């Protein structure tokens, strides 16, 4: 099946191709292609994920305890998410679904550090130039360098918020990027008093600055609702984990989904059975799959995940300042679910505030200094680990043989869950802003603004690989052939 503007309605050979390649100020490797006719009417728009890595396959045959460390290399922006989702799956495998209080709190601290640093990075370093300078502002200025020159205070706070999150990760996981703190059944370190004191010193400032960040984005919405409420907006279902009492929890919970009007589709669904509710479709033009709710089918069953889904899917946020902001958000949307693509930024900053408050509260908990770190029980053959990563619901599913080697791995990463949503957003923007106009750099950036709102992690999403219809030789610096790949061709492939 195909959505509006997914596949050109007339012969693509008669259309002009415009590419945004690479999509920039996002993480990972992706491009957008547009096909336009002579009147610049848009006939096709696609966000392609162009890279493959093959993680699911080469994890097989590795011992299960290696997996939480290996899979982080899927993604350097949210390595903790993969580290923890894999650990949670392996908790099940080692028979330790319930961890010791120290282990669970250490992991929570690590995870909220990750949420804080990733959300800060996305808002300040990557997206704020669009929001503060304008979508078609000067390309030379539209980056963190431009922000540092014009809004030095904002840039500095952004850098320091991210730094704090990274420090929380370093102290809980051992390294800022690709740490090793979490292991099947628990963690391998707890905090010292000094480490707690050290982090607590800055924690209150981080809460205050996160509040300021919420206000920046809230004001942008309030000042220009005509743009912020409608830009790239589309209706869809949404999904996230929620805690047993329905509150927001980014580390653990059960699945809840709502339709576009906010009606519950399923709730408190045990994620060990995720494969009963989600199916993935493959399209020939992207390495990223297209998941949908099986019961509704591919046409109606796609959904969105991430901050905009989470903040509206939960019943409340368990920290006071973020809960206040959630209510403001819900009130602004008039009590109905908001499907504003730019609302992702607002929801993301509310979550950053939630993360900062949660870190501050956790740091007061003496359990972090406990020494009871690892549990194990009856060994299982299979486990699913799910976590709310910065970008949305992340699924890791493994089977492990009696010899402790992994025999099956299936991952649905957050950004994959948003694949159809992002494609729909860029098509909405193309229809509204590009149709019939002379294509300029500024107009094309509108497409990227819509993609950036989702904070896609295209790096995470590249765990598949593609076909080889032509022959390509890889030549080394001296002119020798290192590698040659070829396959029978049934279509034209652009040789770069």
């Amino acid at each position, binding site marked *: 099946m195909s959505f509006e503007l997914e596949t050109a309605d007339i012969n693509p050979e008669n259309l002009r191709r415009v590419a945004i390649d690479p999509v*920039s100020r996002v993480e*990972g490797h992706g491009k957008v292609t547009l096909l336009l006719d002579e009147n610049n009417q848009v006939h096709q728009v696609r966000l392609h994920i162009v890279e493959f890595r093959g993680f699911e396959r*080469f994890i097989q045959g590795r011992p299960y305890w290696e997996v939480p460390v290996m899979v982080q290399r899927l993604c350097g922006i949210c390595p903790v998410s993969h580290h923890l989702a894999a650990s949670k799956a392996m908790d099940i495998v080692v028979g330790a679904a319930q961890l010791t209080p120290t282990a669970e709190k250490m992991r929570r601290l690590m995870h909220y550090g990750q949420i804080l640093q990733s959300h800060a990075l996305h808002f300040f370093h990557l997206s704020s130039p669009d929001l503060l300078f304008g979508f078609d502002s000067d390309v030379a200025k539209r980056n963190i360098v431009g922000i540092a020159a014009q809004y030095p205070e904002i840039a500095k706070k952004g850098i320091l918020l991210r730094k704090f999150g990274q420090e929380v990760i370093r102290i809980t996981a051992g390294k*800022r990027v690709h740490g090793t703190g979490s292991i099947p059944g628990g963690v391998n370190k707890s905090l010292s008093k000094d480490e707690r004191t050290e982090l607590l010193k800055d924690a209150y400032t981080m809460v205050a600055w996160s509040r300021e960040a919420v206000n920046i984005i809230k004001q942008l919405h309030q000042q220009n609702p005509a743009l912020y409420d409608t830009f790239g907006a589309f209706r869809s279902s949404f999904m996230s984990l929620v805690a047993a009492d329905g509150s927001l929890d980014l580390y653990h919970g059960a699945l809840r989904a709502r339709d576009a009007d906010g009606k519950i589709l399923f709730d408190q669904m045990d994620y060990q059975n995720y494969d009963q509710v989600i199916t993935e479709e493959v*399209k020939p033009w*992207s390495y990223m799959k297209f998941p949908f709710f099986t019961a509704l089918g591919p046409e109606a069953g796609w959904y969105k995940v991430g901050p905009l889904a989470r903040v509206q899917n939960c019943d409340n946020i368990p920290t006071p300042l973020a809960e206040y902001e959630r209510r403001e958000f819900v009130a602004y949307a008039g009590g109905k679910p908001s499907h504003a693509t730019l609302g992702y930024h607002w929801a993301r900053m509310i979550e950053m505030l939630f993360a900062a408050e949660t870190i501050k509260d956790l740091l007061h908990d003496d359990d972090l200094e406990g020494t009871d770190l690892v549990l194990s029980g009856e060994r299982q053959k299979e486990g699913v680990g799910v976590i709310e990563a910065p970008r949305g619901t992340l699924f890791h599913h493994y089977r492990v043989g009696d010899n402790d080697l992994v025999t099956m791995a299936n991952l649905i990463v957050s950004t994959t869950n948003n694949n159809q949503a992002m494609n729909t957003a860029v098509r909405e923007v193309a229809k509204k802003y590009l149709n019939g106009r002379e294509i300029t750099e500024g107009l094309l950036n509108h497409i990227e603004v819509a993609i950036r709102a989702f904070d896609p992690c295209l790096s995470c999403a590249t765990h*598949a690989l*593609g076909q080889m219809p032509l022959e390509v030789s890889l030549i080394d610096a001296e002119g020798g052939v290192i590698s040659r*790949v070829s396959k029978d061709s049934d279509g034209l492939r652009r040789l*770069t």
Partner: protein
Amino acid sequence: MTAKIKLATVSLAGCFGCHMSFLDIDERLLTLLELVEFDRSPIDDIKHCGPCDVGLIEGGICNAENVHVLREFRKNCKTLVAVGACAVNGGLPAQRNHLDLGDILQEVYQTSLGLAPGSAIPNDPELPLPLNKVHPIHEVVKIDYFLPGCPPSADAIWKFLTDLIAGRTPALGHGLLHYD
């Protein structure tokens, strides 16, 4: 004032962790901005690399497009640096090198769990041709410096860049040189 050093960065078959580690220089980023001007980088919207003093490459080579971008960087950058394990020797993505590409394809798109019926391997001309092995970048172009680590620490990247900018031969020394 002397002209700023022009710096370009790119991620090929990497996880962006090396770029993250670069940003982990934290407040020193603001100091760096006084000394360098960014050309193509994931943090700005310059899509093609122009003439530059320094190019930092994260990630190895896993498809034809990576080769193309790497050559563009070599052509334009006076000094080209392999940053991190993936660029230096292929890194974790190279773990697929002992497997057959076709088999992985089939497994991921045709036989894995939860696929819609009729799923086939993506094959659109817009998708760059994957190579059957992941390669380190020095197999394709000449590289001037290798910065090991997965990722190299922020301090290592900082020391390296500030040495280079000051005209010294970069030297990391014991504490900063590591491979994990």
